[in-house]
């Protein structure tokens, strides 16, 4: 069998795909955080909880309403994103004029509420969500076995990232969003409905988290705590890459996933902590982040 750096090729490639898949989730979540941060200037601590809500909505929708995976992939982000818009309209907007740390604290409180409620209703053990039949099994690529669902997650997540990039960089609405990020008061003076834009942006960011949640549902056990630990890693990813641009968020997310995957092969004990260690390294060498422009 072919060996790469003392590890069988199949194991190596397997961990690489696993890392890429994790990286795709990091990318999707940090992208959502960056979009929200750009316009609202708050760090959405409820992002992990909203990702978890996405997975739960898919699970419960299937269990009680018979909504299949593909429908859930479209419906759930809309529903959870809609809830996010209500949150923005009735809670976040009331503190928009204050120090942005309050936004972090408010969303933290909301995350506690979501997580705690679901723990009470469903316990912490987690449930399984069946993989759709078409995506069962895998492809034998000769040098490795590629599970179809993981390949699909990678494709779907990247497509979503590209779609977001296109929306923001190439459409009129996206142009408004970018302009609002630069100077929202001026935008308002030009007659753009900035409050509505903010609500839509927050809803979109939350929808991205929920989309990631549906993608994750067949892959990981669906449990109320699935979001919070992931979110802290995503925060580290955001610190590493900065929240400057969409492409940076995607690249950093994928890169960190791959590094994590490699660590699982060569030094499994550190696989939980490697991203935090990279963050420390980046803080020491490039305090503003890899792509950061912040002073």
């Amino acid at each position, binding site marked *: 069998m072919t060996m790469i750096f003392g590890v069988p090729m199949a194991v190596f490639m397997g961990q690489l795909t696993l890392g890429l898949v994790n990286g795709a989730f990091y990318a999707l979540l940090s992208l959502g955080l960056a979009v929200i941060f750009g316009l609202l200037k*708050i760090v959405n601590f409820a992002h992990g909880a909203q990702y978890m809500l996405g997975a739960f909505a898919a699970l419960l929708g299937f269990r009680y309403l018979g909504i299949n995976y593909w429908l859930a992939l479209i419906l759930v982000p809309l529903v959870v994103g809609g809830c996010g818009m209500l949150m923005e309209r009735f809670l976040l907007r009331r503190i928009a004029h204050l120090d942005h*740390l309050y936004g972090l*604290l408010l969303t933290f409180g909301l995350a506690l509420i979501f997580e*705690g409620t679901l*723990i009470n209703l469903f316990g912490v053990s987690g449930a399984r969500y069946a993989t759709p039949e078409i995506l069962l099994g895998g492809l034998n690529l000769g040098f490795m076995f590629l599970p179809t669902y993981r390949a699909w997650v990678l494709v779907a997540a990247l497509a979503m990232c590209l779609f977001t990039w296109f929306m923001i960089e190439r459409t009129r609405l996206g142009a408004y969003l970018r302009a609002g990020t630069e100077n929202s008061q001026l935008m308002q003076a030009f007659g753009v409905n900035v409050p509505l834009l903010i609500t839509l942006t927050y809803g979109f960011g939350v929808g991205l988290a929920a989309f990631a949640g549906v993608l994750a549902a067949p892959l990981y056990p669906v449990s109320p705590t699935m979001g919070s630990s992931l979110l802290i890693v995503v925060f580290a990813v955001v610190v590493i890459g900065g929240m400057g641009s969409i492409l940076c968020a995607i690249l950093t997310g994928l890169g960190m996933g791959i590094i994590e995957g490699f660590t699982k092969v060569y030094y499994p004990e550190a696989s939980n902590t490697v991203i*935090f260690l990279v963050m420390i390294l980046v803080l020491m060498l490039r305090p503003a982040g890899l792509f950061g422009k912040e002073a």
Partner: protein
Amino acid sequence: MTTTHTTSATQLPSAVQERQRRAKLRRNMFYLVLLAMGLVAPFVAYPVFLMKILCFALFACAFNLLLGYAGLLSFGHAAFLATGGYVTGYLLASYPGLTPELGILAGTLMATLLGVLFGVLSIRRQGIYFAMVTLALAQLMFFVFVQSSFTGGEDGLHGVPRGHLFGVIDLSSNLEMYYFVFAVFVFGFAVIQRTVHSPFGQVLKAIRENEPRAVSLGYNVDAYKLLAFVLSAGLAGLAGSTKTVVFQLASLTDAHWHMSGEVILMTLLGGVGTLLGPLMGAGLVVSLQHLLAQSPLGNWVSVILGIIFVVCVLSFRSGIIGELAKMYRKNIK
């Protein structure tokens, strides 16, 4: 206040001094009353419960030093609480000859050292990034604690002996233990009180209000922030170490990010940037947890804390002490 003084500066100094003297007297009286209350408290309430409040109050006061006076929101203070607790617990459990005060000293020292490391890294970023960096560093420590052998991993450390203070006073009695914890709290509170009212504390407030201006005035802002961070970390470690001696255990609960959130809530509820707020907030949150644990709502603690968080941020941002102070000032004038 200051604007009115400038208009008639010639005759006022004595009046101002008189007022300041009275305010100081009132404050000292108030602290004396609190001190007396603290000394009598164990005869009225259950000492272990009071000790829990005091440990968390010290933790919250330490956190408040950073958020309330330097304007830095750390989301990783659980790491210092846990480091203090684990180090003290490990030392006291493995070396039976060690007296508790030395164990606590060692725990505090380790937390302070960790504070230097965290501080150097995290003050490189500002605002929201600072919160994220501290959170991530604390999560790193959480995994370190889970995987290390000296912490007992998922099980934690149990049966840490309370021992004899200075080798003389037996701490196994709750009353004696209480007075020791009370002394530790008073010491920590005094350190914070002195820090806040010192020239150093004034510079911290200046940095909180307007960092660029503090820089342009020639202050080495990073050094001030770092010192505040280290002080806060050390006192949080002291709280954790003391807590371990009281409850004779150290566990992962202290290292979890929920704990970092709880201390923020205590401070916010009591009043950010007020000296007594964290004490009040810690008392309320600990009492609430205690009450809920016995009620049918026991499983909903985290949801209820979340709701309090949201309510505080939306409509109660000065906290209880802050609101009281506002009312007081309004009625005096």
